[in-house]
């Protein structure tokens, strides 16, 4: 079985994928429904850490507009590295290097191009981290931080944006009476939803979630999952998770990564019920990971 798949891959490797300029994209990671509008395209993307280690190898992947794209794969496969590339977090540490393109649609701007300013990229692509990391400030100031960075000073505008973001993050009712209390007084799950609100407040074009529930208990996890699904109606979401059930529950598209390569990309349903690549199958059936 392994043999036939490999041969098939190689045979079709040079077939042009509709909607993409790159001809050598393997069929396994071709977007399942090219008709869906794209928010971003990752094209022949590679990433090297400062020690020379190539953590991402020639990845191609579409990011669908207002859909949830999940990236799964065993530890060390590069899924978080790929996610953190999308808003240039690797630029914070010297010596890291990107290759290829991350095109933000519809403008067609290359986020990792030489002219792209990492700070401006991060204004458009927000991020929620693995461990809740609220700032040592009040709940209100946490959510307002992203607005203040953008030079918004009008109290009324900030008030409204803070409330709207907290409502979208489904935490308004829990915090509306203590907006000016410390964010550290919230539970871990509440803190993570606060961090999601903080990421939403400036209305990013894409919101990246890096294993957002790995530090949370099952009840808090369920709340965050519900929230992410609701949010996908209004914002494009890319989520990295080591929890396959989570990916299958909430995402519309799933990418499976292995040793820095995107092995397979497709509709979540297809990936989990009928994986094309044997490595994907091994992973989702729990043979490794």
């Amino acid at each position, binding site marked *: 079985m392994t043999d036939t798949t490999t041969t098939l891959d190689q045979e079709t490797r040079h077939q042009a994928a509709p909607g993409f300029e790159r001809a050598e994209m393997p069929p396994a990671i071709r977007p399942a429904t090219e008709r869906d509008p794209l928010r971003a395209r990752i094209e022949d993307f590679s990433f090297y850490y400062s020690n020379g280690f190539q953590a991402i190898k020639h990845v191609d992947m579409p990011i669908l507009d207002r859909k949830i794209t999940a990236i799964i794969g065993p530890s060390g496969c590069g899924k978080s590295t790929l996610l953190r590339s999308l*808003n240039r*977090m690797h630029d*914070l540490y010297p010596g890291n290097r990107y290759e290829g393109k991350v095109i933000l649609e519809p403008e067609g701007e290359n986020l990792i191009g030489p002219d792209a300013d990492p*700070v*401006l990229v*991060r*204004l*458009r692509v*927000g*991020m*929620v*981290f693995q*461990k809740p*990391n*609220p*700032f*040592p*400030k009040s709940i209100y100031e946490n959510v307002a*931080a*992203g607005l*203040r*960075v*953008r030079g918004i000073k009008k109290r009324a505008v900030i008030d409204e944006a803070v409330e709207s973001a907290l409502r979208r993050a489904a935490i308004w009712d829990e915090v509306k009476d203590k907006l000016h209390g410390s964010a*550290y007084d919230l539970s871990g799950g509440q803190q993570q939803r606060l*961090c999601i609100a*903080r*990421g939403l407040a*400036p209305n990013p074009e894409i919101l990246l979630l890096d294993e957002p529930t790995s530090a949370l208990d099952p009840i808090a996890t369920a709340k965050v999952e519900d929230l992410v699904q609701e949010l996908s109606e209004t914002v494009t979401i890319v989520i990295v998770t080591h929890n396959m059930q989570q990916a299958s529950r909430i995402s519309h598209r799933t990418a499976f990564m292995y040793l820095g390569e995107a092995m397979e990309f497709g509709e979540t349903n297809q990936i989990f019920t009928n994986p094309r690549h044997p490595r994907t199958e091994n992973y989702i059936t729990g043979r490794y990971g």
Partner: protein
Amino acid sequence: MKTFLFLCAALSVFVTTAIVFVLIRDSWEFFANIPLTDFLFGTMWTPVFANPQFGVLPLLTATLQTAGLAMLVAVPFGLIMAIYLSEYARPAVRETIKPALEMLEAVPTVVYGYFALLVMTPFLQQIVPGLKGINLLVPGIILGIMILPYVVSVSEDAMRAVPNSLREGGYGLGMAKWQVAIRIVIPGAFSGITAAFILGMSRAVGETMVLAVAAGQNPNLTWDPREGAATITAYIVQMSLGDVAHGSIAYQSIFAVGLLLFVITLLFNIIGFYLRRKFREAY
């Protein structure tokens, strides 16, 4: 062995207690003769005059002025240097600058004192009109420079204790590096930075040599830093070196102002250590 080590540890506690005991005992005798209110609110300090006055305000204003001037120097420069070292400097640069800064602490304070008197004062006299040869301004500035290494070192530790996840959170929102420093790192390290400044202030209040040399020995109730005035510490040096009779009221006044100094620095240290503990518990 254990007993021996315990005795060593107990000795340090005993010595501290003994010092405080002596301070309080001799001050007690002083306050038996001079009412506390005369001491705290009197405006004349003339212990060796025929009709001695023991109002501590002239000494206290000089002490607070020099310490205040020191803070005017140490707070902005210390903050900028700590931010640079913690957020901007490459590790190699930081590892060079920090030990160099700490070397400054090894300079004997009397050297700073004569530097203030013989170099800084003549220089500043050309800039500041009416600056006297003995004044509060120059030793204040020098004190600020003296406590700078300590202030920078402690606040830089506090800033580096701010977890990277908070910085990344800031960058993730599109903050530039300076915005992360001002909006995330300083608020995150705030209590640690405050503690650094308060402990630095307490050092400035207790510093002796620079003030004895460059601020003069003349108790002078003034808010004009261009004039010279004896601080509490300078007065203690002067009286201890002089030939006041043991047991006289002038002799006991040393202990009274010493106790006052002790209370002031103790207060600063308590606030400082409280804040330091608080910032350790954060995040």
